[in-house]
Every structure is written in structure tokens, then in C-alpha cells.
């Protein structure tokens, strides 16, 4: 085998420039393929990041205004959710994992910690909300059932609240923040994985309703389902619509009475679109490689023609057609292989640098990059596929020239010109 490689290298050395030029087209093809696929991954990661704040199979329900008269009631009626809706859905809606109501405290609520004042929105949620929204906890915990049942005045905040309002308090847990003058004990600090600068304060829904005169109102409902397919989630969605329609006496087909945001559906749609893009990228990449193959094939044919005499000599002294075919094929595979690996490494290297730069940009505050393009990478599978493509490419490129070489008749090759 080493012998055989020696044989090939000695001929390749003859035509270094040509081998490099030939290889370049293949390198370029693979380079493009890797860059394209890596970028595709980057876009995909950006897309996934958009969905990262919520569990992927969640349903968000917002109340609206009826647009159709129904059951003797006029259109234009406001739908308001209450604790009853929560109880009703919890009891009747099947296939759900967690459900939580949400209520927002009015915007002009004064918030202060010692002498620092701020004006943040406060959201009242149920303990289950911690399983619907993705939160990275830094310290402490989320609101629990005891907090909820006992109307405890506790608050869970994001890191920026600690940094800004609490002056980077090193141990915020157990400290008190005043919401509208009422002290709330900080029990947890988390980070929104989607947006590290996000400012959010969560208090128990029960406490919020009681302390800030919320009555039994709920602004909207967040539900995570057990569904794995869009169809399942859709079924839960329509079931939910029917339950609420009966309760609030609106037409189930009234799109404006309540708004339902089905993340699984969106996620799958986006995923589908990205699958399409991915396929497209492969097609483009392979087309580019085919151009490379044609280039290699072309040059190999010329090479065989130039080496007619040499091949004739080899055959005269005992080279079998099979060994001649091997000589040309392996040479072709070697050129495409080495060139391809160079392209592969360059592509991977570029992706690696781009990834580093983007990560730095994000850390430096260019947060929006997260949603557009993030972690472009060509994984191991892509590298393997690319390698297989290369070997096939080499064989295809070498096939015609090798056949020609094998068909060389020594007498014709050796006859003096």
C-alpha cells in the first residue's frame, strides 16, 4: 500500500502546479458546502433561540373582544379571564402539563430598594409558571405552592434588577424590595436565557390579586402541553377554545374573542422552513462539488493523454489493466481527497472564527445577534458526509480517465512518433 502511494506521489510530484490547480476547484466546493451548511446551522440556532424563552410545546391564551354576536349577546364585548377560567381549564382540558394565569400590575407602580427607585413592570404568576417559561436560576428558587397559598409577599427577579436597583447587592436573597411601598422578600434571582438584560419581577398571582386589588382577574393564561406533534397541540387548542367559548358565551369560531399563540406550531413551521433551507443548501453545495469533479475529471483526461507513453511502458513490462485503473483512480481520489480536506479544514476554521466573533459580539452587547445567527458550525456528521462525498467524487472524476488509460494499447503508445 505504501508502495502504491509512493507510485502515485512520484507522478503527482511531476505536476505539482496542475495538481494544486485541480484540487483548488474541489477545495472550493467543499469549502462552500461547509460554509453554507454551517451558516444554515447558525440561522437554525438563531431561530431556536427565538423559541428558547418558552417550553417548545406551550400555548399562550390572551383575551380579546368578541367580533361576532353570539347567543343573544352583541359583538364588541370584552372577554375577561378570572381564576374560574384557570380552575375550569385545569379541570377540563386534557393533555396539559402545566397551566398558569398571569396578571400584570399597573405600570406606574413605584419600586424601590433602600434609596433606589425604579419603574418596572411586575408580573403575577402561579408556581407552575416556572415550568412553562425557561429561566436560568442564579440564586434561590421560583415561587412555590406555599407562597401562593399563603399570599406571601415574595418576589423573584432577574439579574439586571439586582445589578441596577439593588446596586449589585452580592447577596440579594432575603432582602426586601418595596413594590408600591409594600416590602416583598427576594427569594430567587434568575437570568432569561433569551435576553440577559431582561428586567422582570415575578410575584405570586394570589398575592398580586389580594394586595393590589386585582380581585380574581387574570390577564392571560400560559399552558404547557404533553403534545409532541402540531396536530396534538392543535387539538388541545381547539378543545380549549370550545371550553372558553361555552363559559364566556362567544362563538368558538370568533378569532378575536381570544387569541391563542401556539408555540409548537410556530416552532414546527420554522423547523420545516429550515429543513427546506438545509436541503437547498445541500443541493447548492453538491452542485458546486460537481463543478469541481468535472474539473478534476477534465484534467485527469489530459493527464492520461500525456502519460500515454508511460502507461504503455508500464503495460509492456507487466502492468495489468486493473493496476492501471487503480493508478489513475487512486490518483484522482488522492487529489480530491487532499484538496477536499483542505477545503473542509478551511471552512471549519472560518466557521470557528465567525463563531468566536459572534460570541464576543453577543457578550459585548449585540444581543440581537442571538436571534439571527448564532453558533454556526459544521458538526462531525457533516464532516463525515463531506468525506464520503469526496471519495465518491474522486472515484467519479477518475473513472472516465482511468478507463481511457486502461484501454491504451502498448503498441500504439510505444510506437515512435
Amino acid at each position, binding site marked *: 500500500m505504501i508502495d502504491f502511494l509512493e507510485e502515485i506521489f*512520484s507522478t503527482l510530484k511531476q505536476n505539482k502546479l496542475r495538481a494544486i490547480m485541480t484540487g483548488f476547484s474541489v477545495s472550493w466546493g467543499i469549502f462552500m458546502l461547509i460554509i453554507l451548511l454551517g451558516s444554515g446551522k447558525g440561522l437554525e440556532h438563531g431561530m431556536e433561540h427565538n423559541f428558547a424563552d418558552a417550553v417548545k410545546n406551550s400555548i399562550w391564551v390572551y383575551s380579546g373582544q368578541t367580533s361576532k354576536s353570539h347567543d343573544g349577546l352583541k359583538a364588541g364585548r370584552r372577554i375577561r379571564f378570572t381564576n374560574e377560567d384557570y380552575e375550569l381549564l385545569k379541570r377540563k382540558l386534557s393533555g396539559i402539563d402545566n397551566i398558569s394565569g398571569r396578571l400584570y400590575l399597573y405600570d406606574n407602580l413605584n419600586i424601590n430598594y433602600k434609596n433606589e427607585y425604579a419603574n418596572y413592570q411586575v408580573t403575577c404568576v402561579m408556581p407552575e409558571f416556572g415550568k412553562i417559561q425557561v429561566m436560568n436560576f442564579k440564586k434561590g428558587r421560583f415561587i412555590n405552592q406555599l407562597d401562593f397559598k399563603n399570599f406571601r409577599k415574595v418576589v423573584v427577579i432577574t439579574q439586571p434588577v439586582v445589578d441596577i436597583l439593588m446596586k449589585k447587592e452580592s447577596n440579594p436573597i432575603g432582602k426586601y424590595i418595596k413594590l408600591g411601598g409594600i416590602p416583598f422578600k427576594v427569594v430567587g434571582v434568575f437570568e432569561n436565557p433569551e435576553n440577559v438584560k431582561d428586567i422582570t419581577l415575578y410575584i405570586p398571582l394570589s398575592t398580586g390579586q389580594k394586595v393590589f386589588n386585582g380581585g380574581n382577574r387574570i390577564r392571560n393564561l400560559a399552558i404547557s402541553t404533553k403534545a409532541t406533534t402540531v396536530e396534538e397541540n392543535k387539538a388541545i387548542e381547539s378543545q380549549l377554545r370550545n371550553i372558553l367559548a361555552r363559559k364566556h358565551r362567544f362563538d368558538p369560531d370568533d378569532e378575536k374573542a381570544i387569541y391563542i399563540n401556539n408555540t409548537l406550531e410556530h416552532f414546527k413551521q420554522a423547523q420545516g422552513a429550515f429543513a427546506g433551507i438545509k436541503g437547498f443548501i445541500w443541493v447548492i453545495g453538491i452542485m458546486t462539488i460537481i463543478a469541481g469533479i468535472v474539473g478534476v475529471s477534465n484534467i485527469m483526461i489530459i493527464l492520461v493523454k500525456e502519460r500515454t507513453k508511460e502507461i504503455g511502458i508500464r*503495460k509492456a*513490462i*507487466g502492468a*495489468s489493466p486493473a*493496476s492501471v485503473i487503480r493508478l489513475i483512480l487512486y490518483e484522482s481520489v488522492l487529489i480530491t481527497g487532499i484538496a477536499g480536506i483542505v477545503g473542509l479544514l478551511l471552512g471549519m476554521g472560518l466557521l470557528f472564527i465567525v463563531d468566536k466573533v459572534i460570541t464576543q459580539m453577543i457578550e459585548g452587547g449585540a444581543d440581537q445577534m442571538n436571534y439571527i445567527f448564532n453558533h454556526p458550525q459544521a458538526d462531525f456528521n457533516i464532516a463525515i458526509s463531506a468525506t464520503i462525498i469526496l471519495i465518491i467524487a474522486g472515484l467519479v472524476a477518475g473513472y472516465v480517465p482511468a478507463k481511457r488509460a486502461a484501454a491504451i*494499447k502498448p503498441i500504439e503508445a510505444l510506437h515512435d512518433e
Partner: protein
Amino acid sequence: MSDSIIKIEDLHKSYITGKNSLHVLKGINIDIKHGEMVSIMGSSGSGKSTLLNILGILDNYDEGAYFLNDIHIGKMSEKKAAQFRNKYIGFIFQSFNLISFKTALENVALPLYYQNISRKKRNAIALEYLDRMGLKEWSDHLPSELSGGQKQRVAIARALISKPKIILADEPTGALDTQTSYEVMDILHEVNRTGITVIIVTHETDIAQLTQRIIRLKDGIIESNDYVTNETVESTTILQ
């Protein structure tokens, strides 16, 4: 087992180009014994090159029979033909036909590569053969760095390395000056003395005179098949 190394019976060969058929060999009978040194002469178009190609299993024939070392050489696969060439026949060409990017040593060793002999071993053997040709010091040189006579000696070493039964030389002195021609012929004589049959195709009478037998071809048939007279054999001795 006869004492013939090459036996050709009523050999016919035609080339078909388009609609024209060119009858090149029209019934040739040759019998060459083990250890003979024979020259084949003829003007261009006499069919001598075709005959040599058939003898070297580089071409096939239409009719008749060809026995090489008592083995019938008929239609065979290219692979088989390559094996036969490798085993029985050493070629020497007018234009040497060395591979230009390989050193003298690598050129000589190449037939052994196709016998799957390890690199180390075949290089050692090749060096030995180069030494016999007096070219040991030139083993690392490329053919372009060698003189015509040296190139032909490298080619002879390459032809000999696979220990063939026959050396087929196609105008081996055609590209060499007189002095070098005689040197090459001396080497071929030495080769012949080791028991290897040597067949030389040439159109130079003085070269043919240095062999034991001259077969003259004309228009595809054998015109004469004579042993060289003593007188000329003596002159050979003088040359040596």
C-alpha cells in the same frame, strides 16, 4: 517439452482500417530454439513490427498458432497477457522508453513492482542489475541525465530484471552511434550467453550480422531464413 521457445505456425494478421483490410502477415512459420540469438530484418511495411508485437503479446493475430515456451498464446485477457509479458518477455526499444520522472534505479525496478516484490528487495535487485551494466554510480540519475548508450543499458537492465526467457529488442541500436551500437550488441551477446533467447528487429545489416540467424521478411512473408556464415561470426569474435 520441445527445445523451441517460440514456435509460430502459419500466422496471419490483417489490419482493418475502415473498409480497407490490410493483410500484413501472410502465413509466417518461425521456430526459435532456447538460447538462440536471432535477428528479424525487413524494410518498413514488411510486417516485422507487427510480428514483434505479436511475439511480445502486445497484439493478437487472426490465424495460425503461436506457442511461447510450449504454451499456446491465443486470445487472452489483458491481465493474462500482462502476466505473460512480465514473466517471459523483456522488451528493449529503439527510443529506450524509460519513464522520464523515475531514476535509473526505479526504472529498472518497475517490473518487480508489478510482481509485488517489496520496495527494499526490488531496489536491491535493481542495483545489482545496474551494477552488471556498469551503471551503479548512475542509479540516482534521471534518464534525461544519461547518454543514449547509458539509457539503453538501463533499459536492458529493466528487461532482464524479471528474469525473462526472451528479450525482444525493437531496433535497439536505431538511436545510437556505431560505437555505442556495438557496445549494446556486446551486452546482448552476454545476455544471450546466459541462456536467454534474444530476438532483435533491425534494418541495419551489420547489426543483424552479429546474430546467429537472420530472418528476412518481405511483404508479409519470410523471404529468407539463413544462419550467419562463419566469416561473419569470426568478425563478431574480433569485435568482442
